[in-house]
């Protein structure tokens, strides 16, 4: 009996992983009314993974879509989806990852899987604010199979004080990478290079749905099966910057800045499999 008690205590201590207290933040961290304080630049250690085999794929213009209109359809699918409307019928709230896998509900990046594709009056609570260096994250589960489409909801955001200034849409290039664990112990990095995606900037909370899909809806993204994490970087297409009295040089404190407001990430449809 006496020997069992220390063993029991040891077991309890060994079980303590403190999952909920692993990453905690101060009251205003990523939730500040000050624009500059909300940049999320965490790469979650994903850039220091060991051996990587990199491959890139440019998303062809025919495959790339961006939509900020009220309704939209996927190619090869007659269903009309509602981008912005009543919460119950919106595409975002019916295809968000946190409803498929509860573990996506935790962490700062949970903002990207909660179904909110627009600000909804929550301001910085609803989005992840990125500078050019982007961000990365490990998924809480491994992606086995992503179906139908990959995409994200985003817009440009500035700290330009004059909100009356009508801002044209911005053309942005994205590098969206998935980190796939391989049997050899190495990681394959599959990067989708997205050119000239057009996104709104500070326009009454409008967002664009930037997505691409295989030609056939029956296909799935076999190239990213086994992904354990992702990263996203972005940069303005050259001519875009000339349209704005802002800079994407964040070291320049004199000028106003441009950032990417990322609202939601969709990795496959609801029948995608995570393990």
């Amino acid at each position: 009996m006496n020997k069992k008690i220390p063993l029991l205590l040891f077991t309890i201590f060994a079980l303590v992983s403190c999952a909920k207290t692993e990453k905690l933040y101060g009251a205003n961290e990523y939730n500040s009314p000050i624009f500059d304080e909300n940049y999320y630049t965490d790469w979650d250690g994903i850039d220091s993974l060991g051996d990587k085999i990199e491959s890139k794929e440019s998303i062809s213009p025919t495959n790339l879509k961006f939509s900020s209109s009220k309704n939209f359809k996927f190619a090869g699918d007659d269903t009309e989806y509602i981008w912005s409307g009543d919460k119950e019928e919106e595409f975002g709230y019916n295809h968000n990852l946190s409803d498929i896998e509860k573990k996506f509900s935790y962490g700062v990046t949970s903002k990207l899987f909660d179904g909110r594709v627009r600000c909804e009056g929550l301001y910085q609570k609803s989005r992840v604010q990125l500078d050019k260096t982007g961000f990365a994250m490990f998924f809480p589960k491994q992606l086995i199979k992503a179906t139908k489409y990959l995409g994200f909801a985003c817009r440009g955001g500035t700290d330009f004080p004059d909100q009356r200034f009508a801002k044209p849409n911005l053309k942005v290039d994205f590098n969206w990478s998935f980190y796939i664990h391989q049997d050899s112990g190495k990681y394959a990095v599959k990067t989708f290079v997205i050119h000239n995606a057009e996104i709104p900037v500070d326009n009454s909370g409008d967002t664009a749905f930037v997505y691409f899909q295989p030609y056939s809806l029956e296909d799935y993204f076999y190239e990213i099966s086994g992904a354990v994490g992702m990263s996203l970087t972005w940069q303005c297409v050259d001519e875009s910057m000339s349209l704005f009295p802002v800079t994407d040089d964040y070291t320049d404190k004199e000028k106003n800045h441009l950032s990417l407001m990322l609202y939601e990430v969709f990795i496959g449809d609801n029948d995608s499999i995570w393990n």
Partner: protein
Amino acid sequence: MAAKDNFFVKNKSIITFLILEIVALTAFNFGNISYIFGLAGAFLAIAGFLFVYKTTEDKKELLWLLLPVGILFLISGIASFNGHSKNFATLGNISLFLSLPAFLLLGFFLRKLNDVKPKNVLFIVGGGLAAITLFGLFSTIIEYGFFYSLIYKSVPNYYYNGIPYDVTKEMFWLSGFEFGEVYIEYGSLFAVLCASFLPGLLFISPKKDKNDFIICSLIGGTGLLTLLVIPNFKALIVVALASSFAFILKYLKNHQKATKIVSISLLSVVGLGILFFVITLINASAGFKFTGFLYRVFVSNRIMNKCTPVLEALFIKVDGQLINFFGLQPLMINESAMLTETNVFEVELLKEVGLLGAFLFIGFVIVMGYFVFNYIKKSEDNDSIKAIVVVILLTYFAYSTVFNSVIIAPHSDTSYNPFLRSSSLLVVLFLLGFTFMPPTKKEVSVNE
């Protein structure tokens, strides 16, 4: 019909088992499906009442019992059929209507069956409470570690679906069949009730009654450890204050004097509380006329700031009628007045059953308080049982006055669990029924 031929007497072991199982499962608390045990308890209680009525010659005790049962029926009637109840399923409302009086009757019925020793009844109830608390303790340690409410006080936020939540205000808990985050106040109530078993140890000899000592230590220790791991000092203070009753009973040689001291102290506290409650209501009904010091005491302070919106809503008049007299209307439920967590069960009662219902409940507590004092003075139960029962009752009502929790889970908009629908209240009502002792001349019990 002779008592020994009665169906209940012949099968009393089975019936005792059923009652204890229902109470233990209620104590274990199955979240949204707890009302099933309320319904099951109601059927047993009705049968039990008929049995006691047929087999007891002295009906005076039953007449006394009808007083609290009648009050409970009035309260549960208001709660089940008022505007507030429209937010809940019909079956849940029927369960509420029947279960409040039923659990009081179940306790009384079990005592009359006299098939299990009173200490074992307490241990079974405590076992149910300790089981759910133990699950909570382990899962809380695993998820948060030790002393997390102190360690992470300066950096307390984690994000859930994009919204920051304060980790120091929650713990992990088994709700229904799923573990998840609940507010500390909610989970700690079960721990507090378990810890209330510890004062019983003062009256149990570890040598003579080794088994009882171990069981009581395990139940109480589970509660105490849970409160220490968080740590929840406020809850510990409530347990310590309530436990002082047991110390007085133990170390004051004159039993009568000890009871008198406790009675006077409690009557003073309860009296002051009722006076405060009444003055607050009069001020609210008059449109909050108090200013200066009285304003700070009765209207605007850390506690009253949460209660004042409810009091305001309570006295809303439409065409000269108090529309919320029997509890806040359904419209109010989705507004801030209803969902504001007041942490004060008396004010929650105002939300749930309005002025009449709240005063009926306070009346019920006073009437039962009288019977409990009678139990302490006259019952042949040993002092350990008396101490545990009384400390449980004291901690429950004291804790519910300052830390009552009707919003259980921080992440859910639909985790509203009204005071009158809580399983812990049913357990307390069962204990009140079990210790029910009216001022009759002789003990009435039915044995084979």
